[in-house]
């Protein structure tokens, strides 16, 4: 088995020098996964704010990241901390007309599914959000989190099994 370097490594190195194009690339690459983490821990209405704040924090703290290869896990940890902070809900944008930026409201059926995923242990809920909501594939998830494809496959499999049970028990 060969081990390929994650394709985001050059972007992290360039981002350390303040390269805006590299930040653009990192944002495009990681934003869906970060959004999934936000969805796993909080409501859809605040997930975009968490994504924005995560990248803002990452930019401030990038000099403290020791290993470029750990960028994905490090970024997701920032997102997790932000998403689980109840305080952040106070920071929601309030003054511009809401209609300009109103997020989609989940339907009752979608909401039931989202809640069922959130009810699973964190290890499963975040990966299932990445796969089922964001459309990331297992190999993409593995690359972003710095995990092996085998471990992601197993986690998705177990998580989906638990999710089927949770949805089957729902009224």
């Amino acid at each position, binding site marked *: 088995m060969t081990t390929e370097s994650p394709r985001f490594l050059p972007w992290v190195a360039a981002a350390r020098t303040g390269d805006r194009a590299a930040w653009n690339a990192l944002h495009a690459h990681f934003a869906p996964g970060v959004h*999934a983490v936000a969805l796993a821990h909080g409501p859809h209405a605040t997930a975009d704010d968490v994504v924005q*704040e995560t990248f803002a924090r990452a930019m401030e703290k990038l000099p403290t990241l020791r290993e470029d290869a750990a960028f994905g896990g490090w970024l997701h940890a920032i997102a997790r901390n932000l998403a689980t902070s109840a305080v952040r809900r106070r920071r929601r*944008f309030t003054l511009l007309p809401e209609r300009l930026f109103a997020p989609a409201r989940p339907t009752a059926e979608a909401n039931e599914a989202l809640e069922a995923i959130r009810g699973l242990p964190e290890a499963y809920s975040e990966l299932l959000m990445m796969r089922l*909501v964001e*459309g990331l594939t297992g190999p993409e998830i593995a690359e972003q989190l710095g995990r092996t494809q085998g471990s992601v496959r197993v986690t998705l499999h177990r998580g989906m099994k638990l999710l089927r049970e949770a949805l089957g028990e729902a009224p």
Partner: protein
Amino acid sequence: MSDDYLFDGGGTPDPEVARLESLLAPYAHRPRRGRTTWVALAAVVLLGVGAMLALQMRSEGAWSASTASCSGCTWEAGAWLDTSAEARARLADRGEVVATPGTRVRRETADGARLTLEVGRLDVRLDAPARWLLVQVPGVEVVDLGCAYALEVAPDGTAVLEVRSGAVALEGRGPRSFVPAGAVAASWPDGRTGMPVAVGADASLVAAVDGYDRGELGPDGVVAAARSPADALTLWHLVQRVAPAERERVAMRVGELVAPAEVDREGLARLDPTVLDATLGLVLGRGF
């Protein structure tokens, strides 16, 4: 059933996985990866002559403005927007700006997101990577770090920034100011950047910070007026601006306000970069 479809989308589709994908897709981060490209490609194939349109949709997109006299007009690089009534501008597909009446703002270049706000007020909402948009106000650059904010420039060139989401940096000739959501900071045409103050801070702190920023008062009033964890954000900036002999006292107060057992006050007084980062994290976690 094989879990290939669940893992990488290959093999026979799992009906339940496919149902959930379809049900939950509207709640994904936008723009969606992969599928957006597929949609764009499909448009090219089905419409034939739609190739140019698809390419435009995948690019940075156009900047447009809607004012009292023109709806959805292209906002060309180098053009000023003078508003007699509220105006709204779309910054490609990355954000939106609402300008209040009496605002004068120029789009600078076609190859970057850069505005010059001469006077008036902008309410900015971005869905973009950090540092995507730079707004030049007199003497100082306002750098978004992924956010929503309001920025107002008075006729004398003084600017006031209030951040609603994410964070913004003020970069001038003085120390950089980091302004997170829930904080306000000022800047001056000579390039000075003010220290941020939490929205809702006591008036005595606001007055002390204003006096310090203008060079009219010393740091004592700021330290004395800081009484909450959110006020420690101001002190976090102050410790980096005062004379070395003053730093220990400011660092001590930061610790008292945030988490005495967790703040490395000696490291903070030394302006150790790692300690500064860690302390800022504590301040943001406890105060905002």
